[in-house]
């Protein structure tokens, strides 16, 4: 049995949350650097240059890349033989929330979480959105987090396609979603696509797919690249200023579904994809 202390989880959550808000992962930054050399359109090139200066400035001065420091999304991969020493906390959800609260305070992250009806701010950036995944590895404890901005979250869509619409129907829905969102979600985009399962399963898969950006060895890699190429023909470009690059990358996650259905969820993420993970 593996033993993990709640304070360890809180400290690491807090550190990681601050880190991803001040500095993008190298593999995400690489997409932006590459685009800067490819893009020729006047305003788009200028925008990409400012994005790169922004990343440098945020890292050096230790302030958030974007003022929208997001809603914290957490995927917990948990093995069957992990024992969490809770101390004064009731459960793992409380422990993770405490990490988010601490990181938001220490890192001067914006308090962006409100009651959906009264719009009253919780003042702590909690609760985060937590998804638990049971790992096949008995002693696994891995947390992956995304600071998800809502300019792009608002551009996300879900649709129950007819099963006969197939791959073409899926592609059309993705293209239509990106086209309609245009300049609004801060392109170039990272896109997570969840295909199959049920209504809610597809949405969670689409978010999970965003944690897989940079993985070149996935089942659908050829198809993913083909869809990115199609999206980039739309000409929306960085910031909607026009140009060759509207989508940096797209990842697909799938799950078996019912004979009568084809749920498809598209989770849109801005160029500032703040994602990171740690294991204990």
């Amino acid at each position, binding site marked *: 049995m593996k033993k993990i202390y709640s304070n360890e989880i809180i400290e690491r959550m807090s550190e990681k949350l601050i880190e991803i808000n001040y500095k993008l992962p190298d593999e995400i930054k690489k997409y932006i650097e590459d685009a800067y050399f490819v893009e020729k359109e006047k305003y788009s090139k200028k925008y990409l240059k400012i994005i790169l200066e922004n990343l440098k400035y945020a890292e050096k001065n230790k302030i958030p890349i974007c*003022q929208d420091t997001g809603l914290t999304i957490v995927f917990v991969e948990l093995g069957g033989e992990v024992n969490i020493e809770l101390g004064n906390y009731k459960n793992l959800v409380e422990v993770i929330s405490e990490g988010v609260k601490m990181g938001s305070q220490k890192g001067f992250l914006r308090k962006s979480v409100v009651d959906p009806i009264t719009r009253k701010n919780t003042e702590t950036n909690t609760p985060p959105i937590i998804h638990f995944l049971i790992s096949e590895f008995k002693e696994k404890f891995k947390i992956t987090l995304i600071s998800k901005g809502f*300019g792009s979250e608002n551009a996300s869509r879900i649709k129950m396609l007819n099963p006969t619409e197939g791959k073409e129907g899926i592609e059309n829905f993705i293209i239509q979603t990106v086209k309609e969102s245009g300049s*609004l979600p801060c392109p170039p985009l990272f896109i997570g696509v969840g295909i199959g399962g049920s209504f809610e399963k597809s949405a969670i898969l689409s978010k999970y797919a965003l944690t897989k950006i940079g993985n070149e060895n996935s089942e659908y890699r050829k198809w993913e690249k083909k869809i990115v190429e199609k999206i980039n023909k739309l000409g929306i470009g960085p910031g909607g200023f026009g140009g060759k690059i509207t989508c940096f990358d797209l990842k697909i996650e799938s799950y078996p579904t019912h004979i009568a259905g084809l749920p498809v969820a598209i989770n849109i993420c801005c160029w500032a994809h703040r994602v990171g993970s740690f294991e204990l």
Partner: protein
Amino acid sequence: MKKLYFPLKEEKELEKIRVGDEVLINGEILTARDEAHRKLVEIIKIGRKLPVNLKNSLIYYTGPSPTPNGKIVGSIGPTTSKRMDELTIPLLKFGLKATMGKGGRSKEIVKAFKRFKVIYLITFGGCGAYLSQFVKKIELVCFEELGPEAIYKLIVENFPAIVGIDIFGNDFFDKIKV
């Protein structure tokens, strides 16, 4: 690069501004986003006096992150302007002359901005750290209870933007669908 000073001394200063111009914003500007707009419009509806002077002003759609110790301001980039479209129109007759945010806006806004001679400026989405350099002072104006969504007054120096909508009804995003 053209410089603009807010609050505008004269309305006609906007006549020389065209879509696609790169401009530098100077002077005093206001911040407001979703909830602050909703509140302002509510106050207008019940006929009470606005808690902020909009005459010749610029509203920047932003909700800054908290100011770290020893700094002037936190990250302060633009939010999506389109969400403010409907709530912007009631503010125009109070003399609002410019708005700044990110992304395209509705046809109704382009029409209304032509009628009231208002411009829209696009600044750089996701670049709140970079943009914080151009803010020299931040001060609360009203709606403190809204936290990051309160209305603040900013003193800015050479804050960079691109003209998205001019007073002649031209829209930067016309060729590219919003």
